[in-house]
């Protein structure tokens, strides 16, 4: 590959037209990243492409630029359709399109679930150039919105294809493939090449160019990875200790389940950390709300489930904490991929308890490298113990309260609720409400 020989190709030398080079410059893309440098020459030729690249490598721009350039050459409505696995990712992709394409007057819309069908139908009938969607809602529109079709689509992109297929979008994608013309350009991006992805590739791509940027399971060099070995019952205290150590920097704490994420974020808040939860049980609006609060920096600790591990472009995450060890190495890669992006340095800490040793060893095996131990001052942790326990107790009560509010009092919440217990609880709730502050109250009120 000639382009690879070149040390520092510029966008212009890759064949990107002037207007778009300018837009890249404005958007802060100085030099093409590896994937961009490799994808762009083929994409601009009009080839189908399979890109295997990790998140954060700049692949959104790698497909956005050729699409915009093609659109400029031959403007038409419904030029390209980009499918993404999550709503957040779809919104981010459309933001990239707007950033790069505003100079040439591109109109992109986002068609994702959880939003009003009617206003989407109206937006669609205004004939935008680019549709960024989740497959489910798009098929909905193809079936139910009269007067909307994609018979003239020129370009299809499947972003994070492995994830799309993991989320059982397979049949929906098949439907969409049936509704669009066979003569088109197709890009398929995936973090990993699974058998399902290979099947999808055979079904949708013609004579594709395969571009692989880095090895399957590898992490960026600038990422400092640690593990911390700790007893299971001290997990919370260790978390607080670590967060104290890194105070002031932004962090994502990954938990395995939604309830765990909620519980941790409540504990953190009770202790005065600006934490917000992000998980699958939140409504679309609140997910976006959480994300934007985090992005703008008013809260710098995000407690998330694997929902946030991929595809979300959150700038400036300094530390990733794996509160629970991820269940497979793929997830680990995605999680730690949230930091040390775009050449910056970052740190990841994985909590390993006595029960997680096997899982952890598997990850180390997949990474083919031994991680350093994160030094924790056990005395310091013990000193936090008491306060952490109090915070946990309050958090547990809040969760129970919340359940009662949701499902009514009938739920079995402890048959032996004696009078003085109630008094204690009421006081605790009052305190909790005080410390949690207005934000949480507002959310409750809305329900």
């Amino acid at each position: 590959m000639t382009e690879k020989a070149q040390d520092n190709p510029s966008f212009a030398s890759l064949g990107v037209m002037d207007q778009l080079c300018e837009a890249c410059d404005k958007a802060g893309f100085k030099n093409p990243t590896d994937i961009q440098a490799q994808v762009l020459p083929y994409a601009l030729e009009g080839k189908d492409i399979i890109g295997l690249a990790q998140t954060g490598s700049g692949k959104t721009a790698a497909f956005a630029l050729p699409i915009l350039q093609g659109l400029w050459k031959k403007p038409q409505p419904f030029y390209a359709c980009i499918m993404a696995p999550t709503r957040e990712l779809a919104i981010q992709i459309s933001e990239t399109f707007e950033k790069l394409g505003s100079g040439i007057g591109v109109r992109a819309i986002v068609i994702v679930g959880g939003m009003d069908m009617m206003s989407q139908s109206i937006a669609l009938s205004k004939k935008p150039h680019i549709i960024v969607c989740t497959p489910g809602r798009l098929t909905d529109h193809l079936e139910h919105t009269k007067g909307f079709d994609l018979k003239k689509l020129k370009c299809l992109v499947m972003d994070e294809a492995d994830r799309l297929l993991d989320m059982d979008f397979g049949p929906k994608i098949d439907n969409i493939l049936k509704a669009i013309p066979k003569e088109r350009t197709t890009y398929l991006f995936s973090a990993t090449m699974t058998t399902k992805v290979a099947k999808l590739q055979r079904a949708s791509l013609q004579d594709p160019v395969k571009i692989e940027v880095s090895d399957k399971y590898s992490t960026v060099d600038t990422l400092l990875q640690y593990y911390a070995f700790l007893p299971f019952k001290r997990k919370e205290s260790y978390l607080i200790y670590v967060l104290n150590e890194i105070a002031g920097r932004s962090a994502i704490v990954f938990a395995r389940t939604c309830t765990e994420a909620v519980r941790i974020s409540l504990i953190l808040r009770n202790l005065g950390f600006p934490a917000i939860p992000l998980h699958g049980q939140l409504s679309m609006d609140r997910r976006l709300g959480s994300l934007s609060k985090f992005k703008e920096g008013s809260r710098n600790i995000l407690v998330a489930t694997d929902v946030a591990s991929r595809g979300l472009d959150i700038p400036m995450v300094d530390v990733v904490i794996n509160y629970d060890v991820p269940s497979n190495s793929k997830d680990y890669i995605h999680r730690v991929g949230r930091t040390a992006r775009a050449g910056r340095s970052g740190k990841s800490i994985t909590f390993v308890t006595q029960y997680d040793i096997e899982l952890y060893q598997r990850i180390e095996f997949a990474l083919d490298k031994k991680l350093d131990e994160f030094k924790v001052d056990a005395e310091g942790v013990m000193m936090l113990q008491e306060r952490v326990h109090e915070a946990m107790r309050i958090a547990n009560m809040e969760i129970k309260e919340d359940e009662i509010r949701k499902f009514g009092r009938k739920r079995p919440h402890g048959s032996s609720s004696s009078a003085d217990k109630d008094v204690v609880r009421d006081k605790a709730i009052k305190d909790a409400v005080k410390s949690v502050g207005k934000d949480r109250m507002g959310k409750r009120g809305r329900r």
Partner: protein
Amino acid sequence: MTSETTDITAVASSQKNPIPTLSTNNDDADFEDPEAIRLYISKYAENNASLDARLAEQLKSRPTQDSDGENDDEDEALLAKEAIADEDDPTDYETIDYYTTHFGDAVSDELDLHIGRVNQGSAKARTFTNDVLHRITFHSYEGANVDNLTELVASLNKPLDDFKALRIKEKVKEHWVEAHRPKHGAFKGNSHIDLEAQLFRLMNTYRDVLFTNRLHSNASQIRRAYLLHAVSHLYKHRDATAENAMSLRRAKLRREDIGEKRDQGFTRPKVLIMLPARNSALEVVRMLLRIGGKDQVEKKAQLIGGFSIRPEDDRVDLSKPQDFLANFRGHTDDYFRFGIKFSRQIDHLFTDFYDSDILVASPLAMRMAIGIPGSKAYESDLLASIEMVIVDQCDFLQMQNWEHVEHVMNALNLMPKEAHDCDFSRVRRYALDGKTRYLRQNLVFTDYLTPELNAMYKKYFQNVAGKVRITRSHPGVITKVVAKIPQVFTRVDCPSLAQADDTRFQYFTDTLLPNMMAAAWTAKGVLIFVPSYFDFVRVRNYMLKQNYSAGFISEYSNRRDITRHRLAFFRGQLSFLVITERFHFYRRYRIRGIQHVVYYGLPQHNHYYPELINFMALTNATKGAFDAEDWTCTALFTNYDLQQLERVVGTDVAKKMVVGAKSVFTFI
């Protein structure tokens, strides 16, 4: 409304330095100030570099495809069949078809500019007069629908026989002529130099019309005019959509790309007619069916059954005045709504709302159908694509509850919440942008002008084609007072409109009532006429508190109370009788035993003024105590009451009465 308009376009084009903003989405442009408009225009120019402009260029330069290759036998017929047979080639005439220039999708391109002018309120006013419409005031926006107003006004006098030039569909013309035949004998084209023709010509330009010279005697002429216009509109709409559907189908068979055909709104209902009661609805729909003219009408029996009553069941007193009978004869229920659908062969009545072309409803029933704004059940979708709203008999509607009308007006042309099976590829672009309201034609007909109607004219008439207000200078009704009675008009000067009610009340209690009580002969047989119910309550509370010997009758009083009070007043057991205008409107009793009339405020219905005074002559003459010397008539008015005053004393006099140092005027 300012008559001074700046030449926006000129300013903009002279600006050589366009602002480099390239967003094609101009929805958020702020049109409040001229600077924003200028900015918008320069954006427009710049946009030529953007994708849309390039697309347009390409479409133009693309060679037209020839379809020689494929000729499917099956579709031969369809392909051979050219445009709708019903209509002649539209290029035959040189006149403008206002339907296309006003509602066509092409208007979307520059609509924002016009909307900016509407919102800015930069309408230019020009007034003309003629014998039929009296005073015609145009409010037009620069650039929109510019034609020569003088020419338009001159053309109003032409007879209504140039149907082709007016672009009325052949079918509609036939029916209309047919509908006129029985009444006029053989149809003569030139027999219509009248209100009907003039109104139609005005409405045909798709301007908003506020017509304030309605009378019960010209009511049917007005109705024929707006129905002809509405039907003509619907036929044009139907033919255009049918033709486009056909060419889209043809293009699909030939596999060519003819681009998009956008020719409709979100939902089907296009015309909304608001009427006060079932009797007017019956009359209007009958007339509509004659002009719409199909041989077959579905569910006509249901119309007759539900909207009329047998003459022998009609308990209206035929000796009451004509204007009362016009309103209250027949079925007077004020809760009804139904849809009418025009299909090719047959007219359907009582169709599902979403499947109707015309909605006929009372404001009350429409409001109930819509629901409360902000609530989940708020259902404005069926009004999303109304292109023409007709409000007839506004005087009656005001006697009912004007709030209902405003409620409905507020619900017009909002973005629908559901698709209702709408084909989005056919929806016009301005509709998608939620701007239908700026094209909707508002046609409002009333017996008299009120502040509420003026407010409506200002607030809801947002049509970019401009608006017309038809008024007249009033001769006054003073001369209709039979007896020679001194009529004293007293102006109560109010510092502001907000204080008008208080000032009037104060004058009434502090000066007028004590004066009347001062002399024994003026303290009995006093009828106090209070136009508004709120004032009525205030006056009643005051007089009850002060132990006046008085009876009070309002529109809410029951029949027994009314009879009791009237009788007591006639017998002199009650010295005062206080009534409201609504009571008089709905009941129209002849009130006997009056010796003095006090107008707390002047009536909106100007003919009530002489009517009440003439009651004195009527009743007292039968009693044999005909002594005009003993009768008085006092009317209060404020400097804000010009509209009512001019209808009573005449425009010229009224203008002098509301200003100046002199505040008491006597007519004999």
